[in-house]
């Protein structure tokens, strides 16, 4: 004890105490927080919804309307679609992948760095689910948990992927063009929960793939096959973005044959002479 008190004015003592305090506080929170939440779910939910309402009114209502009814333009278009019945899954997908809020009005909201952190996204999702009518909830890990997925499951997932997804997202999941400037985005680096949410809610122009037609198991197998494809090494060397024969042909004709022509010209131009003899 005496030793402690002699060192209490050491320059690093403050840092040490702060660290210790943080660790204890963090540990206590981790140990207590879930229990506390379970102890009083209703109150926590109400708090979450209230927080979400505040975030919504500040950041979303100017386009989606204060009651989530959407705002129509005089010309017939809309600033933002109605959010009635979209559910927590749609909010978690749109906000969690950074698609919402949109940076600008365009054909399509692209994936970008999320503006809201996880807690804020959760609050927004809770608010929209609670206030704007029931909709799909955020899917659980049964949609994307890859432990215990067998080779057969991956194979079946691949078949389902090719039948349902590859037309837009490309056989390699690299994405592709649609009409009028719209496109199917790449599936590279998409988190499991967002993958499941996109299939359930059909964001933007993507169709819905309901659980009754493609069961959570089917979706998990599709996700597993997607991860399998993405983990494969590019056996052909440069995959040129994996967009298929167009990119490869272009590279072959322009870069490959161009280099050969340049090489041939170089050969023809250069030769060493000994000078006058």
């Amino acid at each position, binding site marked *: 004890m005496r030793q402690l008190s002699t060192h209490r004015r050491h320059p690093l003592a403050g840092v040490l105490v702060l660290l210790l305090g943080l660790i204890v506080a963090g540990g206590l929170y981790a140990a207590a927080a879930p229990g506390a939440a379970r102890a009083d779910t209703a109150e926590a939910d109400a708090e979450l919804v209230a927080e979400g309402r505040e975030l919504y009114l500040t950041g979303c209502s100017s386009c989606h309307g204060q009651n989530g009814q959407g705002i129509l333009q005089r010309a017939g278009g809309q600033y933002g679609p109605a959010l009635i019945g979209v559910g927590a899954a749609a909010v978690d997908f749109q906000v969690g992948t950074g698609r919402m809020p949109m940076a600008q009005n365009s054909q399509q909201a692209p994936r970008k760095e999320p503006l809201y952190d996880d807690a804020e996204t959760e609050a927004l999702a809770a608010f929209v689910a609670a206030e704007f009518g029931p909709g799909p909830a955020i899917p659980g890990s049964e949609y994307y948990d890859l432990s215990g997925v067998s080779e057969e499951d991956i194979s079946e997932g691949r078949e389902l992927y090719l039948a349902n997804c590859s037309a837009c997202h490309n056989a390699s999941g690299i994405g592709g063009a*649609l009409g009028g400037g719209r496109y199917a985005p790449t599936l590279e680096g998409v988190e499991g929960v967002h993958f499941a949410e996109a299939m359930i809610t059909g964001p933007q122009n993507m*169709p*819905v793939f309901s659980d009754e037609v493609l069961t959570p198991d089917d979706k998990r197998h599709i996700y597993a096959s997607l991860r399998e494809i993405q983990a494969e090494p590019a056996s052909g*060397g440069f995959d040129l973005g994996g967009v298929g024969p167009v990119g490869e042909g272009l590279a072959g004709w322009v870069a490959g044959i161009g280099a050969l022509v340049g090489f041939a010209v170089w050969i023809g131009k250069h030769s060493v*002479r000994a000078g*006058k003899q």
Partner: protein
Amino acid sequence: MTTHGSHPAGSEGDEHDGRDSTANVPAKPRHTGERVVLRTGGDPVADPGLGEHEPRPTDVDPAAEKRAERQISLLFATSALLTLAFCVAYFAIPRDAVLFGTSALNLALGVSLGLALLLIGIGAIQWAKTLMDDHEMVEMRHGSASSEEDKAEALAAFEQGAEESGFGRRSMLRGTLLTSLGVLGLPAVVLMADLGPLPGNAPRTTVWAKGVRVVNDITGEPLRPDAIQLGQLVNGQPGVFYEIAEGEEHPEYEGTELLNAKAKASVVVVRMLPDEITNAGSAAKGVDGILCFSKICPHLGCPISLWEQQTKNLICPCHQSTFDLADGGRVVFGPAKRAVPQLELGLDDGGYLIAMSDFTEPVGPSFPEMYQD
């Protein structure tokens, strides 16, 4: 041309008026040290001729020549070693080994064989450029027609043959020979029967019929209307591809027959709000806004399932034909010439979606005969 005009050879030619200068062409235009001037009469621009030949280091220095020979041999020998390395790599490197994020086997095979071929090419060019004779030479053009005597001789030989064989005289021989040769063309026509039976009614019909269930592709699950949400896309198939009749071990269609049937019968099932459907006739063929269209593009037969649920457009990935499924599959963009065919839906006793008939028009690419009736 101005640089050529100012060239010493050009100024020399100018003095000659350009008429008699053909005399300057030596009988053997191989380089002899002085400038060769090639000209035809009346050429307004003097022919600059060939530049003076400059020897290469390998022409004048025996050591350089020896060195070049060694270099080229080294290129060829390295190429041979790389080809052997290709053979070794083929067996030695495991198929699933990974190097630099790519297949180690593919990398080794590609690099070794590619370099082997490249080195042979570089060696050959180096040989030609450093060691082979590189004197510029001129080869004059010559007429390619045969001489008059040769022509007359050939003609005489032909006439003699015709006379001796009696081809002109013996008309029966001539007739039977020509007939036998002509008939030889028949097998080529007859063998075409092997190109298959005539398609008959096959391009106009599919396996869809009244009562055939619409099921999900791959899983074969039958579909109830309440399973299909607004904005949903289902890639559908006729249930007969999956249902196994009593006493049978397999579905009715298998193998090639299944693929052929599938190529015509694939459908997409979509759902929209009933008031979003602008075509009343098309809406009447659906169930509560659930519509079923052929998945085969009526342009060239690609599978179309790029479904934009907000614009209600179905897009073909091959040539961007775009169909408005809210308006009976009308073509709104692209090279397709007719709407994508719609399959009339109904419900069976179990509440599952079924077809009410086969497609009422041919699915897939249009063909001339479909416009004949």
